[in-house]
Structures are given as structure tokens and as C-alpha cells.
């Protein structure tokens, strides 16, 4: 059992949330004060298993998601621009690395422990599961369209209406089948996520308090 597994997912989520709030509390001209905060994403990156893969995925995500922030950043001084880029890189990398560290199921467990209503968590789990199935369905639809339109891959808005509508009808039918199957297997309104060994431990409290202390120091 490595170090990260000794800490419960909820402690990781809470610490990342505290980290995000502290980063957000800096003003627009505090670019250089933000640099030491890279310690947090780097350390949780090192706690995980696939360090290189996670790093590559995080960098990709930062580049893909940055245009809006960059556009807003160019209307200001250089200090503000750097500060915005640093804030963005820090908060996004911490969040993406957190998810790769604890996994989606870990995140849901954390939400259970943080007393988020069960209806929300069940909704998230179901959605995450079926998004893979529907993604394949969309690929088949697009393939069928490409084959029938003589290689013309552009979908007109009229075709889009019936394609998305058909996808929606299939989705409704699928939902019905899924619900029947869930009821047959004894679905009682909640999908089990939290295991007993994942409740709050002393190590979690020490971890959160320790990080909060480290992260708050540069604020003074």
C-alpha cells in the first residue's frame, strides 16, 4: 500500500478544494507569489502511479482548455497576464491530477463522505457509465451518414435534427431496458460506492491540516 492509498479520497478532494480557494484568493498582481504553489500539484503527481501519462494528459488538457482565459489575459498588464496563466495552470493541473490519483469512483466515494445527496452521485455514476456506450452509438451514426452521403462528412442542420432525434429515441429505449435490469438486480435507489474502510481516519485529518498549514504560509 503506497502513501496515497493510506489517505482517503475525501481528504484528497478537500485538500485540492482548499488549494483552489487559496490560489483564487490571490490578487491580479501577485504573479510571483504563486510560483511556490506548484509544490502541491507536483507532490500529488508523484503520489500517483502513471506519472508520465498523467503529466502528458494534464499538459494536453491545460493547452486545450486555455483559450478563453488567454483571451481575457491579453487585455491587461504583463503581470496580470502571467498571474492569470499561473492561476489557470495551478488550478487545472491540481484538479486533473487529483482525478487521475483517486479515479472517478474515488471521487464519487469522496462526495458520499462529504454528504452530497445520493441522487446527485447516482446520477453522476450512471452518466459516466453510459457516456461510453452512447459515444460508440454516435460513431456508428456518423459512419452510417458518411457511407450514405458519398463521403460527404458534413451534416446539415436538417439531417442533424433527425440524427440527434434518433439517437435520443434509442437513448430513451436504452434507459427503459437499463431501469428494468437495475430493478431486477435489486436496485434500491443508490449505487454502492463507499466502502467501510474508506471512512475518515486520523491520517486524513493530519493530511488536510498539514497541507492547509503549508499552503497558507506564503499568504503571510
Amino acid at each position, binding site marked *: 500500500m503506497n502513501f496515497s492509498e493510506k489517505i482517503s479520497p475525501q481528504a484528497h478532494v478537500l485538500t*485540492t*478544494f482548499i488549494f*483552489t*480557494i487559496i*490560489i*483564487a484568493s490571490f*490578487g491580479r498582481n501577485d504573479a510571483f507569489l504563486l510560483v511556490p504553489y506548484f509544490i502541491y500539484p507536483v507532490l500529488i503527481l508523484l503520489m500517483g502511479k502513471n506519472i508520465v501519462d498523467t503529466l502528458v494528459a494534464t499538459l494536453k488538457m*491545460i493547452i*486545450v*482548455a486555455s483559450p*478563453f*482565459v488567454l483571451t*481575457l489575459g491579453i*487585455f*491587461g498588464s504583463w503581470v*496580470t497576464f502571467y498571474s*492569470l496563466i499561473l492561476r*489557470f495552470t495551478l*488550478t*487545472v493541473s491540481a*484538479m*486533473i491530477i487529483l*482525478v487521475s490519483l483517486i479515479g472517478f469512483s474515488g471521487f464519487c466515494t469522496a462526495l458520499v463522505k462529504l454528504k452530497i*445527496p*445520493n*441522487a*446527485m452521485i*447516482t*446520477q*453522476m*455514476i*450512471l*452518466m*459516466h457509465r*453510459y*457516456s461510453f456506450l*452512447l*459515444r460508440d*452509438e*454516435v460513431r456508428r*451514426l456518423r459512419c452510417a451518414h458518411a457511407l450514405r452521403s458519398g463521403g460527404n462528412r*458534413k*451534416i*446539415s*442542420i*436538417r439531417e*442533424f*435534427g433527425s440524427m*440527434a*432525434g434518433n*439517437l435520443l*429515441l434509442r*437513448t*430513451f429505449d*436504452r*434507459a*427503459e431496458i*437499463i431501469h428494468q435490469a437495475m430493478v431486477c438486480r435489486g*436496485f434500491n*435507489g443508490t449505487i454502492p460506492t463507499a466502502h467501510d474502510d474508506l471512512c475518515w481516519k486520523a491520517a486524513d485529518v493530519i493530511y488536510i491540516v498539514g497541507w492547509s498549514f503549508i499552503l497558507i504560509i506564503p499568504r503571510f
Partner: protein
Amino acid sequence: MHMADALISPSVGAVFYAASAGFAVYGLKSIKKETNTLEYESDSKVSLMGVLGSFIFAAQMLNFAIPLTGSSGHIGGGILLAILLGSSRAFLVMGSVLLIQALFFADGGLLAFGCNWFNLGVFPCFVAYPLWRFLARKYKYVIATMVSSTIGLLLGAAAVTLQTTASGIAELPFVPFITAMLSIHLVIGLIEGAATSAVVVFLHKARPELIFGEKELQDNNKSRLSIKKIAVSFAVLTLIFGGFLSLYAASAPDGLEWAIERVSGKEDIEFGLDSPLHSAASVIQEKTSLFADYSLKSFSEKLGTSISGIVGSFLVMILIVCGAFLIAKRKAY
């Protein structure tokens, strides 16, 4: 249009977390009321909500070509979900969609989640959807969907601007920012509205019973939603946006004025053109322009600015409605 953690201050994040949480509690309570039981298990819509959430993701992979341009667009989620599930359930589904977008695609963030849920959940589900129901009774679905989804998106875009300005992280002046955001999102809204209405019309033809509260919609006499209430709430919204916010906006210079001020150090440029033609033209312009510098003549400055704001907002609404009618006429359905 997602807010990022980098753009907001903790206080703005907290306020919108609280607001969205309030709507979520209301949503959960009304679902429990609707199913008439405290147990969630008997609710067959649980799986439907989950699968429809993933449908929104999947449908956004289906890009369609935008006529006359090289680009492509995709569907807007909130209003379609509300049409299928009703406000409360759609709001919860939007929450899960936004959280997954934040976690896996870095669209949004942990602190900005409250803001995003408010902008892309509350406006489409609790403002645009009641408007849709009102319009769907009187007009064709295509018009109702176009208008309501555009207005929902514009409100969200305005909220993004307000949240960014209130946080004070980005240095972008308020007026050029909101002008750019609203004009870009007006175009996006009309395109998304057209795509969404194409789906709604298809669905209405194929399986009308899937539209939430369809029977009630067809029966005009049993209308539960009061027209007065909707009209009043929209008038109030327009008054807030046009009247109150324009006061705040007017104190900051607009993009061009701001640029001029920075370059020249003066608020207005004196061009030094004293030719009779120029002075005559400026006299005509001064007398004919209704909203010179966004103020009505013969009013006190603040009142004039407010009235200009309100009239401007109404003009935008009329423009959206006209656009929707034009597009609706061109289509076969």
C-alpha cells in the same frame, strides 16, 4: 462559456455555490414531491436522467455544418434536457454534466462549479424553460425553442461577464467585455437554438409523449403557468439588466473610448475639423441621435442612461424574436 477557477475570487465562487445549492435543494424536493414518495427507488426516471446526461455528451460529438461558414456547431444541453425532463431534473442532470466536464475536460473548475451550474443550469432550466412552456402554447415549437434557448444562453453569457468583473482578476473593462460576449453568444444562441429546435420538432413528430408535460401543453385551458407571472418576471429581468446594470456600465468607457483614452490621454478626441460641412453634420447627428452617449436628452443623466439601457434590452429581445420567426418561416416544419 465555462468559468475557470483562474478567473474568479473565492467570495464570488462561494456566493454562486450557495445560490446553485439552493436551486439543487429545491430541485430535489420537487422531485420527491412529484414521485409522492421519499424513496428514490420507485422513480423510473433515475436511469433516464443518467442516460440523458450522457446523451448530451454524445450529441455534442455530432457536429453539424453552419451554412455559409466553414465552421460547425453543436447542440445546447440545458433547454433540451428541461423540455424532456422538466426544470428540476434537468437542473440536476446539468450539474452532473458540468462536474464531469470540469473533472475530465478541464472545462470549469472545482471552485467555479457553482458559477457554471448557475450560468448553464439555472438560466436554461428555471428561466428559459418556463418561457419555452409559455411560448409553446401559442407558437410552433421551433419558435419557442429558438427564442428560449437564445435568451437562456445570453443570460448565461451576461452572468459570466458579471462574475468575471466582480472577481476583479481579469483587467478587461466591463462594457467592451459584455458587448463582445453578448454579440458572440447571440450568434451562437441562434445556431444552438436552431439545432435544438430541429431535435425537438423531430421528437414531437416521432414520439410526442416524450416531451415533458405534452398533454398539458396542448390543452390551453388548463394552463398552470400564469402568463402574467412570466411577463412580469421578464419585465423585471429586463429592467434589472437594462436599467440598473447600464448605470454601472456607463461609468466605464467602452472599448473604443477606452482605447482612445489610453492613446491620447483625453476622453474625447478633437479632430480639428472646422469645415462648415463637418460642423453641420455634427449638428444633425446631435439632434437626430436618440441615445447620444446612451442618454436621452432632457432627462437627468442617470435616468437617461437607465432608459436607454431598458429600451436597448427590449430591442435585443425583439431582434431575437424576429430572427426566430424568419428562420422558422424558411423551414418546412
